[in-house]
């Protein structure tokens, strides 16, 4: 087991370094000189000497390999440099925006699991009945519906409903209050965005639960469990679901990283100042230091959620641990 964990943890580094190399190369593909963009944005002429100074300041005058190593080192020591737009340290910019995004992501995950596992199971048990058709249609709908559109529609809906009931339209608050200070305000802010991004997440997990359940229900040990007279509830809960949930765990883990991608759009709809919005602003402002740090952050989230999934898998399934 320990050997497996050690092996799996070590595998994280090649991917992270590879991703850092890719980001490094991409950022150097930017047409033109970053310093020219920076100095030329004022429109006036500038001293050619200023370009050399700017190069030295960002470190572009060093050999490429040194630049790359310091880039990777910065990444591991949480020093991402200074935002080219606001002038504040990138790590500070990210840390102030992270809590709101993390909260929505976690809430969406909880919502997704609560919807996906029961519905997926029922759908598999009642295969080819109307319940199955409804659940499957809901699931495909979740994959097809753009989350930002769902957000716009739900805001419209909430506005109209509250307007009809109380006479004044109510909008979810947009500023972040920690949950321990004002739980109601905090949750009323995070709830709608979480449902909006959670629907797609639930849809994907629901399909996985259904197909995994269908597969497991055909196994011999399910027939054995039924043959020895166990009541159906125990057969489903203890024998079938326990095994069917393994692939579902994978999907939930992988989709968690993609949730961050979904937040990029959803935060825009709800005007929330999370890392998704920060990302869009960084791209719009051509703030390359901030962009590369945020890209590396999402990659790190992906790599580590994969790691956690694999370790959980090993813990849940002894066959992997001892293989």
């Amino acid at each position: 087991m320990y050997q497996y964990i050690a092996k799996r943890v070590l595998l994280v580094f090649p991917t992270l370094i590879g991703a850092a190399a890719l980001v490094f190369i991409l950022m150097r593909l930017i047409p033109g000189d970053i310093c020219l963009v920076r100095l030329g944005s004022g429109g006036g002429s500038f001293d050619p000497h200023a370009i050399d100074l700017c190069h030295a300041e960002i470190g572009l005058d060093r050999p490429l390999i040194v630049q790359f190593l310091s880039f990777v080192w910065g990444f591991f020591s949480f020093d991402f440099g200074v935002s080219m737009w606001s002038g504040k340290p990138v790590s500070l910019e990210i840390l102030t925006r992270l809590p709101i995004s993390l909260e929505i992501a976690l809430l969406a995950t909880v919502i997704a699991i609560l919807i996906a596992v029961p519905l997926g199971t029922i759908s598999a048990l009642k295969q080819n009945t109307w319940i199955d058709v409804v659940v499957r249609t809901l699931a495909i709908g979740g994959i097809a519906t753009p989350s930002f559109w769902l957000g716009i529609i739900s805001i419209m809906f909430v506005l109209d409903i509250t307007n009809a009931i109380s006479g004044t339209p109510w909008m979810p608050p947009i500023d972040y209050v920690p949950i321990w200070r004002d739980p109601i305000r905090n949750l009323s802010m995070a709830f709608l965005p979480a449902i909006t991004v959670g629907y797609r997440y639930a849809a994907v997990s629901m399909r996985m639960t259904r197909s995994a359940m269908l597969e497991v229900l055909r196994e011999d040990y399910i027939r054995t469990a039924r043959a020895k007279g166990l009541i159906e509830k125990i057969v489903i809960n203890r024998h079938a679901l326990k095994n069917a949930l393994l692939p579902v765990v994978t999907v939930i883990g992988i989709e968690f990283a993609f949730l961050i991608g979904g937040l990029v759009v959803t935060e825009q709809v709800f005007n929330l100042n999370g890392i998704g919005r920060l990302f869009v602003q960084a791209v719009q402002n051509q703030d390359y230091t901030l962009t590369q740090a945020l890209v590396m952050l999402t990659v790190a989230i992906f790599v580590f959620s994969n790691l956690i999934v694999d370790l959980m898998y090993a813990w849940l399934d002894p066959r992997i641990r001892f293989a």
Partner: protein
Amino acid sequence: MSTTLDGRIALPADEAIVLHRSYWQATLHFCRREPLGAVGAVLVLIIAITGLSAELIAPYSPTANDFAAMTEAPSWTHWLGTDQFGRDLLSRIIYGARTALIVGLTSAIVGGFAGLVLGVASAYFGGRLDLVFQRIFDVVMAFPLIIMALAVVAIFGTGVHNVIVAITIPLIPRCARVVRSSALAIREIPYVDAARACGYSHSRIILRHMVPNVMAPFLIMLTAFVGQAILAEASLSYLGLGVQEPTPAWGLMLQGGAEEYASTAPWIAIFPGLAIALTVFGVSLFGDALRDVLDPKLRER
């Protein structure tokens, strides 16, 4: 013979159900077996034809402002109403179908075929090449699709062409990985050895012997990609980092005005989103049915 998604080899008997029929018979069989898939296919066909013949169908120009008819509710003159510049929403949605399909199909097909070649080559040659390719796929796949696309847009800029590039790149490794696992199973089948013993060139073996046999998982991936690409384009355009005005695009139509006029003119927000959802819904229904037909492991469920 073909393989299933996880690389298991299908029995020849399974194959007889799908192949060795005329196209009409196969289509008829598909419709009878997978009515939902047929509905999806028809939906996509209708949208594709609408997009292709936009000039003939659209009642108005998609870019013509009409300040006498701003934010008008749906009526007989403007079936789906008008936006804040008085542009006819129906016409914009019809032209938007073209943009969505151009971006969706081009990135799915280019990304899919690049992935197909890389995946099969990786499995066929094996060894160090395979190892290097796989590590590269791993790295690229660590970027969520929309994040990768945003990063590419950040570098090359916005516009239809750059959006296609931005969506194509992240699709390549996703296809290559699935294709590779199927191709690994194919490589072990004696006819590949036989082809090698005949002295055929590598490219001939890859193209004539291996590629046709990974078509089933490839086509399933390809339909999924079309849906993903259309959604990604809509998201990028919505953020203002994709297709730019005046090109009509569904995501772009939801930007700005849609939220501002949500309570007074909800149709501006509702219809373009419905267009996106319906298209991707159709593609997904068809893709699901295709998987059920082509993947023998799921058959008879």
